[in-house]
C-alpha cells in the first residue's frame, strides 16, 4: 500500500520545473542549504553576513579558508530571483543597510518565511569538465524562517495523545511548573470528556499561548515551545487553526460526548499538523543537501541549567525530523538527502579567543545524541565556533596581578564600550549544582561600526570555514 502512495506523491511533484531543479541538484549545480536554529540563534544575521561575504568574494582577503576564493577561481557572485514566486524574497538589502548604517543595528528578527538564491560563477579545476565547460555556475538556495516553527516538525510524528502527555510531563518541572499554573488550574476545572462551549476552548488556548509566551521570556529562555506558531504566528495570526491546546490528562473511559473538549482539541491539532506543519515541511524542509545548525549557547549559559537542558532537548528533537541518508528508492535515484551537517556555535566573538576550542567541544558534547545518529547515517559533520558579524575585539590586561584575556565591545544597552572577561566556557556539561549565579556573564554586544559603509568588509569569525565545509566540495 505504501509504495504506490509514495510513487503517486513523487509523480505529483514531477512537474517540469521541478524536474529541472532536481536535475540541477543531481548534477551539483544547485545546493539547498538548510539554516537551522532555534529562535534568536542568529539565523537572519548569519544569512545576511553569508550572502554579503559571498557577494564580496572577489575583494580582499576576508575568506582565506574558502578555497574557491583564495585559489582565485571565483569569477563572480550575484543575487538571483528565486524561481518560486510565491515565497517572499529574503530581505537582504534592508538587513545589510541596518548593519552598515551610521549607528548600526542588528537586523529585525524574522517573522515569516523568505528565500534567497546566490549564483556563484567559478572556473572548474576538474580536468574533464574543463574541456566541456570551463566556467560553471552554482546556485545556492537559502531559506530563512522563524526558528519557532522548527519545533513543529517533531509534531508530525506525534499523535495528540502522545503530545499531550509530553507537555504534561514537562509541566511537572520548574520553571514550567510555576509558569503554567494559570493554564493548569483552568484545565483542572474542565471535564475533557463532556460537552464544551467555544468560550472554554478559546480560553484554554489563550491561557496556553500565554504560558508559552511567558516561557519564551528572556528571563527563562525556554526553547521547547510547541506549537511554534503560537509564539510566532506569521501569516496565521488570529486564525482559528491556532485555537487548541494539549490536555493534561487523557480521558480514561470510552464514553465521551461527540463534541467533547478532548475530541475537538484533537481534531484541531490534527488539522494544524495537516495544514500548517505538513505544508511547511513538504514545501521547504523535506529536501535539503546541506545543513547548518546554529546554536547560541551563551544565553543558555547565562540563564542556567533548566534553559540549557531545554534547548538541548529541543535541538535534538528538531534534528530528528530531517532526513539524513534515508535510503528510499526515490532518494537513492536522486541522492537528495543531507550529506553534510555543520554544528555551529554562534556568537563566538562573545567569548575570549582562547575559549573558542572549548566552545566547540562543548557544543559537540551537548548534541552528542544527534551527532552520533547522523554520523551513523554516513553524514559528514563538523563543529565550529563562528561569528557572523564580529563585534568585539580581543584584548588582554592585568587584573589583580594576573594577565587576563578579555574582549572589548559596546554592550547592547549602552553606548560606552566595556572590557569584559565573560567567564570560562566549560568543556564538560556542568552538573545542575554547578550552574551557580555569577559563573557566566556573557553580554550581548552592539554590531560594530563599519568604516566602509556598505562596503566590502563585515568582520566575521570562521564564516569562511563554514562556507568551505558546506559548499566547498561542489566546486
Amino acid at each position, binding site marked *: 500500500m505504501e509504495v504506490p502512495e509514495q510513487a503517486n506523491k513523487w509523480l505529483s511533484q514531477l512537474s517540469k520545473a521541478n524536474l529541472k531543479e532536481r536535475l540541477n541538484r543531481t548534477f551539483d549545480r544547485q545546493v539547498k542549504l538548510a539554516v537551522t536554529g532555534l529562535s534568536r540563534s542568529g539565523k537572519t544575521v548569519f544569512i545576511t553576513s553569508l550572502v554579503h561575504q559571498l557577494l564580496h568574494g572577489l575583494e580582499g582577503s576576508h575568506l582565506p579558508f574558502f578555497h574557491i576564493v583564495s585559489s582565485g577561481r571565483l569569477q563572480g557572485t550575484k543575487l538571483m530571483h528565486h524561481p518560486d514566486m510565491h515565497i517572499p524574497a529574503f530581505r537582504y538589502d534592508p538587513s545589510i543597510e541596518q548593519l552598515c548604517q551610521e549607528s548600526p543595528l542588528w537586523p529585525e528578527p524574522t517573522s515569516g518565511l523568505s528565500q534567497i538564491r546566490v549564483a556563484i560563477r567559478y572556473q572548474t579545476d576538474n580536468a574533464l569538465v574543463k574541456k566541456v565547460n570551463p566556467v560553471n555556475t552554482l546556485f545556492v538556495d537559502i531559506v530563512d524562517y522563524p526558528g519557532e516553527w522548527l519545533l513543529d516538525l517533531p509534531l508530525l510524528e506525534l499523535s495528540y495523545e502522545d503530545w499531550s502527555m509530553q507537555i504534561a510531563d514537562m509541566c511537572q518541572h520548574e520553571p514550567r511548573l510555576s509558569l503554567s499554573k494559570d493554564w493548569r488550574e483552568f484545565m483542572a476545572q474542565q471535564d475533557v470528556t463532556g460537552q464544551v462551549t467555544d468560550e472554554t476552548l478559546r480560553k484554554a488556548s489563550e491561557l496556553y499561548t500565554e504560558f508559552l509566551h511567558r516561557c519564551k521570556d528572556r528571563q527563562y529562555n525556554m526553547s521547547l515551545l510547541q506549537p511554534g506558531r503560537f509564539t510566532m504566528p506569521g501569516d496565521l495570526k488570529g486564525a482559528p487553526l491556532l485555537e487548541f491546546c494539549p490536555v493534561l490528562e487523557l480521558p480514561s473511559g470510552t464514553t465521551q460526548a461527540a463534541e467533547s473538549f478532548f475530541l475537538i482539541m484533537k481534531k484541531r491539532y490534527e488539522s494544524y499538523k495537516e495544514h500548517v506543519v505538513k505544508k511547511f515541511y513538504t514545501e521547504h524542509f523535506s529536501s535539503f543537501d546541506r545543513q547548518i545548525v546554529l546554536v547560541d549557547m551563551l544565553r543558555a549559559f547565562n540563564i542556567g541549567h533548566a534553559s540549557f537542558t531545554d534547548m538541548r532537548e529541543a535541538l535534538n528533537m528538531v534534528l530528528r525530523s530531517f532526513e539524513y541518508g534515508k535510503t528510499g528508492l526515490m532518494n537513492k535515484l536522486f541522492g537528495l538527502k543531507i550529506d553534510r551537517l555543520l554544528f555551529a556555535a554562534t556568537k563566538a566573538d562573545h567569548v575570549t579567543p582562547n575559549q573558542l576550542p572549548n566552545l566547540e567541544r562543548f557544543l559537540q558534547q551537548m548534541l552528542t545524541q544527534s551527532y552520533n545518529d547522523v554520523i551513523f547515517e554516513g553524514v559528514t559533520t563538523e563543529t565550529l565556533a563562528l561569528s557572523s558579524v564580529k563585534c568585539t575585539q*580581543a584584548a588582554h590586561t592585568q*587584573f589583580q596581578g594576573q594577565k587576563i584575556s578579555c574582549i572589548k565591545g559596546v554592550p547592547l544597552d549602552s553606548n560606552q564600550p566595556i*572590557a569584559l572577561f565573560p*567567564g570560562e566556557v566549560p568543556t564538560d556539561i556542568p552538573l545542575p549544582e*554547578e550552574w551557580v549565579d555569577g*559563573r557566566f556573564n556573557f553580554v550581548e554586544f552592539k554590531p*560594530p561600526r563599519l568604516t566602509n559603509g556598505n562596503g566590502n568588509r563585515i568582520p566575521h*569569525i570562521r564564516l569562511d570555514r563554514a562556507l568551505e565545509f558546506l559548499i566547498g566540495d561542489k566546486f
Partner: protein
Amino acid sequence: MTTTAWATPKIFDLDAVENVEEEQKVELNYTQPVIIPADATLKTNALLMAHEPDTSDYDEWDSVDVNYAGGAAAIAPNAPTRQLDNVSLWGWLGVSLGSFLLLALVVDTALFLDEQYDNSFVLGTVFLVLITGITATALGLTYRSYNKILQLKTVSELQAEGFQLFDSQGHGRAMPYVNRVASLYLERPDMKGNLNQFYAAVTDAHHDQEVYELFTQKVMSDLDKQAYQIVVQRSKETALLTMLSQIGLLDVIFTLWRNTALVKDIATLYSGRPGFIGSFMLFGAVIQNLLYADVSEAAADGMAEILGGSVLSVMSGQMAQGLGSGVMTARVGLQAMQNCRPMPFDEKNKPRLRHVRKEIVKSMTEVFSKKDSAGTAG
C-alpha cells in the same frame, strides 16, 4: 555447630565506615567573569588590529612588527639528543688532539716570527701582518659558518615545534611560532607581499591549527612551488645528462655535483644560504634521512625505475639509467625540502615523487621523440 562458608550480609551504620576513596564532591572550579575597570590599560595586538572594525589605518601593516603580544609559548624542552657518556672519550681525544695542534701551531708561528725579527725588522713585520691577516680571516670564516650552523639549528628547532602544533586545537601558541618563521623572511623583498597577505588575513580568533594552515597557504606555498620547480629542473638535467653520457664515472661525479648544488639551492630558498660547512652538514643529513627512509616508500616511489621495471627501460637501457639517476636526484631534492622547510609538511601538501617522475619521463620522451624525428628527417 553451624559454620557458614560465606559471610552474611550486614548493614553498617553510615558514620562508622571510612571511605576508601574520597567522596565525590562537586568542586566549583572556574574563573569568575570580570568586567575590567575602565582605567585598566588594555593591550590589543597591534598587528591584528588591522581586522578590527574600528581600525582606520591600513599603513600599519607594512611595518610588520613580529613581536606578537600574545603569551609567549613555552617550548617544550627537547629530550637530550646526545648522551654525554657515549662521546666523552672520543671527545676528549678530539679536544686534546685539537689543542695540541693549535698550541703547536701557535708556538711554531711565534718562533718563526721571532726568527724573522732576528733577521730583519721589516721582514718580521711583513710576516706579522700576514699572519694576523690570515688569523683574522680564519676567525671570520669560522664565525660565519658558526652562524650559519646556528641558523640550520633554528630551522630544525622550528620544525620540531611545528610538529607539536599540527594537531593542536589550542589557541595562542601558533602566532609566536609563525612570527619566528616569518622573521626568516622579513628581509626578503619577494616575500613581503606574502607576509602582508598573511597578516591581513589572520585574526585573533583563529586557533593554532588555522594560523598554521593560513601561513602555509599564504607564505609557504609559494616557496614550496619554487622549491619544487628547482627539484624538477635539476632532476630533469641529471636524467638527460646521464642518459646522454657514455662514461660511468662522469655520471657519478656529475650527479653528486648536481645533488649538492640542489640541496644548497633549496636551503637558500627556505632559510638563507647555508654556508660551506652548513651545506655539507645538510647534505649529510639529507642522505642519512634518505638511507633510513621507509623502505616501502622508496620501493613504491623510485625503485621501479632503478630496477628497470618501467616502460622506458624496455625501450632503452640508457634511458632507464637516466631516469634512475633523475629520480634519485628528485628524492634528494624532496628530502632536502623536508629538511630545510622551517614548518614541517603535513600529509596533504607534502611534495610527491610521483609528480616529479612524471615530469622527468615527459622531458625524456620529448628528447627521445625529437631525436627520433631528427633521425628520420636526416
